[in-house]
């Protein structure tokens, strides 16, 4: 089983995916092949849902006092983003950084996913990649 951040990169690096239990139609995000609703654990009985690459800012802040690995990026924006899912899917939100913007953020603003370095453990350590978000250019 992959960690959620790995599944964001799978199968195509930019795809954000959820799973759907074929037994009870439960939509699971982050992606899991285990359904807590109907206890289905058969990996062949889950389908993959590709989620939209765009969303709206649900809430946001700017971090001025970072954790160790994010010192060099400070200050940076983080937000909760509500994905632009159609009405046949439940509301799906996730957390991520907003990058490449020099204007004040607002709740409801449209954002699009981009693939970026999240952080690196240390000069000799792993580089962690994942999804960040850009505001739309006016």
């Amino acid at each position: 089983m992959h960690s959620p951040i790995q599944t964001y990169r799978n199968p195509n690096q930019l795809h954000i995916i959820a799973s759907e239990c074929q037994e009870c139609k439960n939509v699971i995000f982050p992606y899991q092949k285990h359904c807590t609703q109907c206890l289905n654990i058969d990996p062949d009985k889950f389908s993959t849902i590709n989620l939209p690459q765009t969303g709206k800012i649900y809430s946001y802040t700017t971090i001025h006092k970072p954790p160790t690995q994010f010192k060099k990026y400070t200050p940076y924006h983080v937000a909760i983003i509500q994905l632009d899912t159609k009405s046949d899917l439940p509301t799906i939100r996730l957390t991520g950084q907003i990058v490449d913007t020099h204007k004040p953020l607002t709740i409801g603003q449209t954002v699009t996913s981009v693939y970026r370095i999240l952080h690196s453990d240390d000069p000799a350590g792993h580089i962690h990649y994942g999804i960040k978000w850009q505001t739309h250019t006016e």
Partner: protein
Amino acid sequence: MKNQPQAYITGVGLTQFGEHFDTSLETLIIEAALKAVKDSHLKSLKEIDLIIVASMTATYLQSQGHLSSLVTQLLGTSCPVLSVDAACASSGSAIGIALQYIKTHHNILIIGAEKLTDHDVTDVTSALMRAASYSEEGIHGVTFPGLGALIAQRYFHEYNKSPQLLEKIAIKNHLSGSNNPIAHMRKPINSKTYQQSPYVADPLRLFDCAPVSDGAAALIVTNPQSSIPATTPTSSILAHAQGQDSISLHHRETLTSFKAVKLALQSIKQQVNFDANQINILELHDAFTILEPILLEDLNFYKPGTGFDYYENDNPQFYINTSGGYKACGHPVAASGLRQISEIHHQLTQQAQDRQINISTSQTSLGLTVNLGGMAGTASLTLLSNS
């Protein structure tokens, strides 16, 4: 109202909260434990038949696990020791466990301790962030004040209110803390100090966030069938409940209300029959100022979006955080829940000195603590009474 106590609190022990550069986690644990026993009717640690210990960051910052055995060595006891982790609600969780065990035990010692200073602030920020989801939040650089800020930003958006409202909470709690000898921050602050403090994660400023502190707190919980000398100041635990919610904020239906608190409140109401008007004092989890008004709403004292009205009332029906709260006392994570209960115990037993509020000796007075773990992924509520 006739509610049988689930247990008595017969002793409390608190270390000074603050920067203990010359004191280890071990010494803080010993000091709080011995103070609690000396404060109680017990003559020695041998009368304790179970110990519960909590520390959120010891494994990370002190590289110290296996606290049950550590405590046995530190206190020289031979009774069983349980170790609990629910982040900031660790000691609140310990109360819940103690109330189950007390049915078959005489006296239980609960200890919460944390040693956060002596480390780079970014390391402490990383350690505390372990109370949130790493794979969904921490990996994106979110901090705990950042999570508080996401809640605050959404609250002010939904209810069309200004972050300026937070200032009054910070000023109130620092004023209360100035009367509390164990508080980390003992100076009152004014509007200018607040406004000049830098943003940690906007709209939250430095003075919206509880300081990083060392400290330990301990309680003696005694079986309600025990005979306790009349000279021992005693308060009763009428009810305790724990509610849960997702660890990641973004999986919740709303950011402006805490399901875990509402679930715990429902459970408290099922356990005891009480009138909210009898509550004289609340100790609310104010690690971030925005949490106080939201908790007032979730506890049904105020309607959604009106929690800030409390701070406009010069003569409120109950007191909040007479201790100074997490804001002024500081927040040695696993000690804070017990520190909150200690404050209510001191108030209900007329031992709060300069902070003493008017508690009737003839009528029932109630106090309620709300101790959150993470950003209310766990909520621990404890209802205490003076009778």
